[in-house]
């Protein structure tokens, strides 16, 4: 079965991204497919490579990047939500005249249409948020 996942809150501040990560791992481990993980609202902040969590805590961005690499997950950050919150890739930074970008490996920025498309293509859509 194909799952589509929405993450609506930022890392550490809410448990949502942890719960989503645990769900995705369990889905993959039990033979399901995860067609996409869509980061919306503050969820876009999961995809910054500039975070430096305490060493004795889980490394949320690195967990997602590693899981995406291992399972070829499609981690999509909503462009509209990301612009409001200051999450950019190089392409966006160039286009908007910003002097830096902060997106982490394994994530890509795209439009809200990718959320709707995920809802259409996945058998089940599940949101982790607040």
């Amino acid at each position: 079965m194909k799952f589509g996942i929405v993450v609506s809150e930022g890392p550490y501040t809410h448990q949502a991204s942890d719960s989503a990560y645990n769900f995705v791992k369990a889905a993959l481990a039990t033979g399901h497919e995860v067609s996409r993980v869509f980061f919306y609202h503050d969820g876009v902040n999961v995809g910054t490579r500039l975070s430096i969590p305490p060493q004795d805590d889980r490394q949320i961005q690195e967990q997602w990047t590693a899981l995406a690499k291992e399972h070829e997950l499609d981690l999509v950050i909503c462009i509209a939500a990301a612009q409001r919150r200051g999450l950019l890739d190089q392409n966006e930074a160039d286009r908007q005249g910003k002097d830096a970008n902060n997106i982490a490996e394994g994530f890509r920025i795209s439009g809200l249409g990718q959320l709707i498309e995920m809802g259409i293509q996945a058998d089940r859509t599940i949101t982790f948020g607040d």
Partner: protein
Amino acid sequence: MSDVKKFLYVNRKAPYGTIYAQEALEVVLIGAAFDQDVAMAFLDDGVFQLTKGQDTKEAGLKNFSPTFRALGDYEVTKLYVEQESLDERGLTLDDLQDIQYEDEDDDYEEKPSIIVVSRAAMADVMADQDVVLSF
């Protein structure tokens, strides 16, 4: 499964204190381009999103409430509003914006988009969906 899915956007939060109402609308507008069977649900504090006369000037916020009146142009024409949620908050239909759409199957007659339903009927609406997105 047919090519068209039933999408329900569930709104349970008040506007302005948090961004969920505003960013939910952004999803609905983009989603309208996908030719799915779309509806919105307003219950609990979500009914506060639809009040008329919102004036955000002094608070320094962006007033996104006019967007609700544009939904008809995007063929988003089913806005289910829960009666019990209105009652608990002392609101009536008169307190909400007059949101209409032009029915192209009926000589473009203007019809109301807001459908006030009981809690039981709202539960039926929810149970009849393929995809439920919550905000």
